[in-house]
């Protein structure tokens, strides 16, 4: 199968950009002007880009990864040179000719692919990848579990104190519980609990009804504490979910799924410490929905980037726990030609049902990925909603989704007529992430 020759479209390339600034900078380099020594072959593109310095930067992109190498000092990933090179290839098929890779590009490609293959062999070999000293690892895990347990007990104590004194106190200025408690949970090596505590801190005074929201989230945090303290008595799959929620990520050990994956959405959420990138994929044969997570230290874009709307041939290995959505991508992800029809979907009622069912396995889920097959965006008194085409039932959009520019792309795409929308459906409402119009069903319109 020679799918490596498939060129990415400019849209897909721009979707790889870590931020708007790189998108613009990359666009400027997407012309023949600054480039020399360009070539392509065997799923890779390379070239020299004239920058402000005297010596041009050498840039190479392995589109089967995708993976990037560039000599520039940029901390963005992919950098503007890699984007420009891909854009040049996307905008003008004749601009980059088939050639043999020069040494500097070839060496990296060979090393990269060699690594990929050995990784495949390793995971196929079964026994490989285990820790060197199982006994030491077990002792480390026990020590960590003990620290988490003491953290969970401490958090229980603090929640009980809060409830005794009343939530009203949490709105007082200078109420220092959250940050300090979050730091204690970090010390206890329970990042899941730390994150939860920080989110609790953002609720007081966050608009009408905040005490109700705070009580709900305190109760769910309490539920997680209790679940951890009794995790040995829980059924195995649920115990895995609890460990994942606490912050002990289960390794990706499921059965790998090979499929043609449609990239539905890619978006980043950043806090002061970490940028988290979420990529939603839909398996066009298996019908599976998968979530890829990629992380970058503060201010740096995560390494994994996939073009929205592309169909990629590759293997995903699911993680256990939390509805088994999260997966790890294999080393090779090759773009393939072919129509990218939207995932099959249903009415808004079915979307809420799916969320409800998912809560049985993971009560801490805020939302669940669903596709609404024929909905019309409409403005109600409280804000925008997505209504079934028959005009009976509707889901409200989340407050965050209402203030994004993607809302207007969705409204424009619909023009008052039904469209297919993929997004996250949860107790706060629906967050639209991608949409398809019946006139152009092969075109995925990103909404975020």
């Amino acid at each position, binding site marked *: 199968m020679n799918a490596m020759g498939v060129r990415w*479209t*400019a*849209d897909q390339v*721009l979707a790889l950009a870590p931020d*708007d600034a790189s998108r*613009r900078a990359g*666009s*400027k380099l997407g*012309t*023949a*002007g*600054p480039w020399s020594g360009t070539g392509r072959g065997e799923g890779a593109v390379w070239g020299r880009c*004239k920058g402000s310095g005297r010596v041009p930067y050498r840039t190479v992109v392995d589109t089967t990864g995708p993976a990037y190498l560039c000599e520039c000092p940029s901390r963005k990933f992919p950098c503007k040179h890699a984007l420009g090179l891909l854009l040049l290839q996307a905008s*003008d098929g004749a601009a980059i000719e088939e050639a043999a890779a020069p040494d500097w590009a070839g060496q990296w490609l060979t090393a990269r692919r060699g690594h990929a293959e050995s990784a495949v062999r390793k995971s196929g070999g079964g026994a490989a990848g285990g820790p060197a000293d199982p006994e030491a690892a077990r002792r480390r895990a026990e020590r960590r579990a003990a620290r988490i347990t003491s953290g969970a007990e401490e958090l*229980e104590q603090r*929640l009980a104190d809060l*409830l*005794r*004194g*009343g939530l*009203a*106190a949490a709105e007082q200025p200078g109420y220092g519980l959250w940050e300090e408690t979050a730091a204690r949970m970090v010390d206890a090596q329970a990042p899941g609990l730390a994150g939860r505590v920080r989110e609790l801190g953002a609720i007081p005074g966050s608009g009408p*009804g*905040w*005490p*109700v*929201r705070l*009580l*709900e989230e305190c*109760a*769910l945090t*309490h*539920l997680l504490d209790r679940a951890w303290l009794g995790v040995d008595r829980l059924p195995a799959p649920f115990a895995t979910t609890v460990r994942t929620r606490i912050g002990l990520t289960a390794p990706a050990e499921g059965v790998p799924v090979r499929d043609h994956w449609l990239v539905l959405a890619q978006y980043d959420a950043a806090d002061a410490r970490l940028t988290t990138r979420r990529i939603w994929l839909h398996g066009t044969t298996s019908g599976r929905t998968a979530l890829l997570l990629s992380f970058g230290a503060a201010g740096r874009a995560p390494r994994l980037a996939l073009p929205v709307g592309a169909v990629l041939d590759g293997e995903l290995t699911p993680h256990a726990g939390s509805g088994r959505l999260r997966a790890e991508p294999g080393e090779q992800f090759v773009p393939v030609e072919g129509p990218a029809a939207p995932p099959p979907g249903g009415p808004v*009622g079915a979307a*809420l049902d799916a*969320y*409800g069912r998912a809560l*049985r396995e993971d009560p801490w889920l805020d939302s669940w990925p669903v596709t609404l097959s024929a909905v*019309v965006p*409409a*403005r109600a008194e409280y804000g925008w*909603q997505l*209504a079934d085409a028959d*005009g*009976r*039932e*509707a*889901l*409200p959009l989340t*407050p965050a989704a209402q203030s994004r520019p993607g809302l*207007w792309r969705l*409204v*424009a*795409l619909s*023009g*008052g*007529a039904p469209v297919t929308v993929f997004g996250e459906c949860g*107790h*706060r*409402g629906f967050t639209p992430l991608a949409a398809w119009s019946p006139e152009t069903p092969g075109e995925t319109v990103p909404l975020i």
Partner: protein
Amino acid sequence: METDTTIPTAGAVLAEDGFWEELVTSALLGTDRRAPAGLAVAPGGDLPGALLDAAALHTVRRRAGLRPGPAVTPPERAPEDPRGPLPGAARRRLDQLLAGRAAPSPAGRRGAAPDLAELLPQWLALANELGYKAPAAALPALLDAARARTDLRPQALQLAGPRGLWLARLNPEWRFALRGAGAGGSLPDPGDREAVRALWDEGLFAERVALLAAVRTRDPAAGLALLASTWTTERAEDRLMFLDSLRAGLSGADEEFLEAALGDRSRNVRATAAELLSALPSSALAGRMAGRAVTCVGLDRTAESPTIIVEAPHECDTGMQRDGLAATPPAGRGERSWWLGQLVEAAPLSCWPRRFGGRDPEEIVALPVADDWQGELHAAWCRAAVRQRDAAWSRALLGSPATPPATGPGTSSLAERAQLLSTLPQEERALWVASFIAAHGMSEAFQLLGVCEVPWAEPLGGAVIDALDIAREAGSYPWSFSGVMGLAERCLAPEAARQLESLTARPDEAEDVSPGAGGYWSEAFQRLVSTLRLREAMRAELTEPAL
């Protein structure tokens, strides 16, 4: 079940669930102050723990049981747009241009990459010319672009079409699109008398201006009739704007109306009416002006060689004022020369050959003028040639492009020369400007280039490239020519890229030129070449046959 239907917004609470209310109240006040009624605490358990247990159960149950809310009436559907969709590559290009719009090049050095924002107007014009519609998903970015740049609005709104207007109605930020919706198709068909009448009688000012312009374009007489029907009841500012609409399709049929408007209460309306009438060489006003002008300007036959003598008017009587002459000069100008200038400007140019013994415009312009009146007289002729769109006089007043601007006939002002040029046919304009650049270089050509048709016809393109090359060799910096460079990026024919290719090389630094200039020039030419290539690609993408 009807009662189970609730809107799943954050914190929404099933109204009938009194127990939950009880839990919330206790949690808010603190369990030490108020224990929730009906909460069972297991033996050995604590009250806060029991409250949280119950709240967790309730929260998960509520989330799992969420039901959709009622749908509101959906928005009216956007009208069908029969135009064809953009070819795939062109549509991606549009996204790229719109994304690049937000990033204007940093001031100063511009680098070697094309300025995408400057190419958007051209792209939009071509797409509209070819009759495409905008992709629905690109409409928000297109409307945002039009909101930020008024020069883009007409073309952007045309491409956005009926769905763009439909969308603009939903978002107050795009309200601009609904004002003066000239291109938007919300105007009635100019032939639909009833609809036109209704909008003319009831429409907003902007709608009425657009309507009058549309009707006038299609049927000048109908436009005039429409305006005449309500003329006496319009406000003065509105009368001025409406009168200006008559500029399109102006003909002798408008004379009677305009003549009446000379008696208008508003001075600005009177002046505009007079200006329009003077652009009609056969009008009675033009005749009256010609009569006055020829008594002031004539040939002195007593001189050795024929010379023009000027006797400026001694008064500005009520008749002259009624015909649009302003009696009071601006500060610093003499009354009599001020009156003369206005008289000559408003007099039909056709009266002069008769006055000067059958000489043609060129010969008249070449005649010496006595007593330093030449500047005043020629300037007035220039204004008259522009107003009356008279190519023969413009040609005479422009003179030979090789003559240095300061010593030529007519005017030395480049802005006025550009206006004169605009009355000439396109090819002649390009030829004139090309010769001008060849003779005087680039430094004064900017405004003249602005009136030439895009893409620049040969020999204009070649002349510009040669002049840039000469400037480079002379060792100046490219940013001294950034205006012309920018114009060249937008206006040169894409084929010129081949000619320019050789100039993009970085030359060895000579000793007598400005340091680093060679590198900057090579960069500037690179940008020029890549912009031209990009324009060629843009055109090819838009004109490629749809699959």
